[in-house]
């Protein structure tokens, strides 16, 4: 595209159902 450069596209909304292992917790997910 001429006017747009995409920097990041994690598609956060597509993985909502699979998230929440409960092992992470005075902003990288260790479980990937």
């Amino acid at each position, binding site marked *: 595209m001429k006017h747009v450069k995409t920097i990041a596209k994690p*598609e956060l909304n597509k993985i909502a159902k699979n998230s929440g292992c409960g092992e992470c917790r005075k*902003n990288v997910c260790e479980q990937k």
Partner: protein
Amino acid sequence: MIHAFNFKNEYFVYDVESGSLHEIDKIIYDILRGGDLSAYDEAEIAEAKQEIVQLKSQGLLDAEAPEYKPQEKRLDVKAMCLHVCHDCNLRCGYCFAKEGTYSGAREMMSFETAKKAMDFLIDNSADRKILEVDFFGGEPLMNFDVLKRTVEYAKKRGGEKGKIFKFTTTTNGVLLNKETSDYLNAEMDNVVLSLDGRKEVNDAVRKTANGKGSFDLIIDNFKYFRSIRGDKSYFVRGTFTAKNLDFSKDVLFMNDLGFDQISIEPVVLPEEHPLAIHESDLPIIFAEYEKLAEEYIKRRQTDKWFSFFHFVLHLDDGPCYKKRLVGCGAGSEYLAVAPNGDIYPCHQFVGENKYVIGNVNGGALNDDLRHAFARSSIFTKPECMNCWAKYHCSGGCNANAVHANGDMNKPYRTACEMMKKRLECSMYIFAKEKAGDVF
């Protein structure tokens, strides 16, 4: 929902639901913001609009929110703030802990209470494997023996139950000598060193009991700790107030001293406090964050590389969706325990009787209070639901909301505005560093 912003005449659009970030030309920015398009010809406008349509069709702009039913947070406990000492050897002018006492008596936690707190954490952690304990105060090193015995006990009892403990200590550095430093370096997964920056800034608010500045007392202790810490986690963590709104100088000063993991936070105080930050200060603070962002990018190309807590933003592989709704988990997965064993939703509520959840020595827990915290999320905060930053701040600090507005579901607006500015800075830095387009 999208957020288009201009940072130093470079233009970006962030797509809230997909988490996508795009660097865009001004014509796209003007179209998205409904700006004046008279400077562009019709062909250019048509081409730009076509690219916007293309982004939308790819799910990278104005993407749909996931179908997700709001749930209560889990009540099994993940992390505990252990107040091993309600006393302090400093008298900082802004301390929410009131000289470490939380408006109560000066008090040390006994080892018996600390053991019961560890038992409570383990027994109420369900199937979580990784548990976290923050040694806090007051000044936790004033109760160093109990701290050490608690670590030993937690590791032993946790090992029997298949739990892995991660420990953190927050210290003002006064008692940080070779013995305590070597111990913390060996046993702590993270150590937070409290320092406000330049000597004159630090000493204006962080004073000893006899009213002298603390900088000269602690700085060599912190430097020694840094020298032995290697690549393990630590933070030099400061607070800025109305007296040092030029706080970027304090961050860079701490970096010049050799520290490379740095955080500085805006003070939260009642409006009338002489050190309080007001909404009218925000333009100065925003300019300061921008100044810091530009210098940050430059320094990270040199031997003065450092990490600034609020500019760490992994857009490609950050926390999962569910985690972004939960926030810190205060009152549900995160609790604080006072020296007498009383349990609170978090360290910022300690000493407020109406927020006592129970006691580690036994008795019933206030489940109504825990459920109130467990229900609270961006879904219960109307202002957050319409905010582009909601998946990064997770609804903000409940304690700040309660203390500012009397309601955990009404966010503290000044903190919201600063969070949004820091996010714009972080996205700018992320874009520059990812593209290798640095100064």
